[in-house]
């Protein structure tokens, strides 16, 4: 009993909430909260307005809903190949994986070099700023747009797809690599400078060994992104591979079963990639 009594004062609020503060859980109505609430209110109003003003064209929502469910059932529950053989599908998958690998490798090699120049602790502020600004621009433009830009010169196809995806990969990986390099303890770099080591020696002997687990893990993340990208580019830019097969199955043959099969295939490969990535990360974390 005594113990409880002694604890009791702790449970009572030290300062009583003033009037008007009760509902906001004691949070004062400052500028941020006000802005947040205003935004929410506007979203709500817009949502209601949108649903009220849609042109439904006599669409029966109930029937449409049932139709969609039926389509999904076909897609998910009866996957089947009709226009391609399994070997052809596997071949398509191989091409898509190759596209992803190629773009990641090209991106990684270029990004390694530019990442070193972009890292503030290894480069001059001017060069670092220029490169970081440049890659920020590259990243801001979506991959598909880069592919279409390169398609002007190379024509729509695998060349434009690889160039565009590799380009965006460079933008992504330079940022990731540069940040990994900047994490390296400045004291270690200073210590090697003090031994008379040159820039490349410091990079190879201190920076890369320290940052290698980050580099590898970012490269794998990018590989996963590029896998999805390669699939989309196969359909959108005619880069070939499973994405193009998917495009044919859906837009050309209207074959839900085949689309379903390809979806499962992609899902399986994505799961395998995810597992590998996780494993690599776990192993690297153990080492660090």
């Amino acid at each position, binding site marked *: 009993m005594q113990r409880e009594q002694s604890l009791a004062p702790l449970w009572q609020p030290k300062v009583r909430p003033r009037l008007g503060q009760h509902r906001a859980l004691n949070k004062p109505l400052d500028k941020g909260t006000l802005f947040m609430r205003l935004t929410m209110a506007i979203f709500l109003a817009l949502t209601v307005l949108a649903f009220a003003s849609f042109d439904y064209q006599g669409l029966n929502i109930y029937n449409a809903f049932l139709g969609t469910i039926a389509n999904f059932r076909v897609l998910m529950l009866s996957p089947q190949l009709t226009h391609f053989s399994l070997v052809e599908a596997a071949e398509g998958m191989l091409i898509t994986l190759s596209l992803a690998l190629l773009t990641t490798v090209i991106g990684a090699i270029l990004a390694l070099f530019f990442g070193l120049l972009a890292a503030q602790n290894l480069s001059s502020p001017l060069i670092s700023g220029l490169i970081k600004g440049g890659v920020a621009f590259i990243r801001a433009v979506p991959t598909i747009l880069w592919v279409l830009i390169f398609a002007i010169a190379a024509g729509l196809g695998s060349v434009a797809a690889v160039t565009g995806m590799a380009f965006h990969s460079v933008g992504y990986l330079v940022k990731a690599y540069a940040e990994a390099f900047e994490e390296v*303890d400045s*004291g*270690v770099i*200073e*210590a*090697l*400078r*003090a*031994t*008379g*080591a*040159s820039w*490349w*020696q410091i*990079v*190879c*002997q*201190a920076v890369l*060994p*320290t940052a*290698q687990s980050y580099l590898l893990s970012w490269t794998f993340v990018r590989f996963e992104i590029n896998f999805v990208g390669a699939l989309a580019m196969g359909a959108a830019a005619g880069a070939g591979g499973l994405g193009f097969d998917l495009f044919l199955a859906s837009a050309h043959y209207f074959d839900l079963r085949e689309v379903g099969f390809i979806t499962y295939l992609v899902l399986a490969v994505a799961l395998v990639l995810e597992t590998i990535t996780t494993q690599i990360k776990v192993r690297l974390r153990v*080492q*660090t």
Partner: protein
Amino acid sequence: MSLLTVKGVSKHYNERIVALSDVSFAIEPGEFVVIIGSSGAGKSTLLRCINRIVEVTSGVVTFDGLDVGSLDKRELRKMRTKVGMIFQHYNLVNRLCVLENVLHGRLGYKSTWAGALGIYSEEEKAQALRVLRLVGLEEQVYQRCDQLSGGQKQRVGIARALLQDPKLLLCDEPISSLDPNASKVIMDYLKKINTELGITCLVNLHQVHIALAYAERIIGVKRGRVVYDGLTEHLTAETIHDIYGSEAGDLLLGSGGNHVG
């Protein structure tokens, strides 16, 4: 001739932050000199001005007859090989093994690519092993540095510096991150390197009692200025009080007897 002369050296980081102002002293070959001063007095900056990790604002540093400020990139690398440096936080590449870290001491002597790729001659490796034996780490040669204790890491740092075959060893707070036992071990190694290998040592410390126990000569730095430069036995309690501010001085001197020896 002096091994190292520092003449009128000032360092301003900007208009307001003055790390060093008009510092002058000379170090003779074979000396064991300790620089004392409170944190932020400019001790670390002073050491870094000697091997030009930090560029001086004005003044001249002369090492082994060379005007350090006038050296070009290649000459500077060559000069730095002759100046070993050890740090408070050891500054080792944690993911590499002890031997690889020690061999970094040879980088300044090697061609860029041999050094970058880590290609060392048999002789260099044998020398690295000899140095590791000297600091008592022959058992840990292939261990990764992040598995070592603080004292062991600092000994790797010393071994790396020794492999440079230096004439001067700059030690920036070498024991500030270590417990008293490891501190004593490290200070004893530094003293041994000084007396047996004849390598000149310039050591930053803020533990006055350790400075008194090990130094032949003490340089006191206060707010970027040298306020004392002379033999250890001539250093008076008043001067220490002046360097650190009086109350801190009492504290530092009072604890002296407990730790030394």
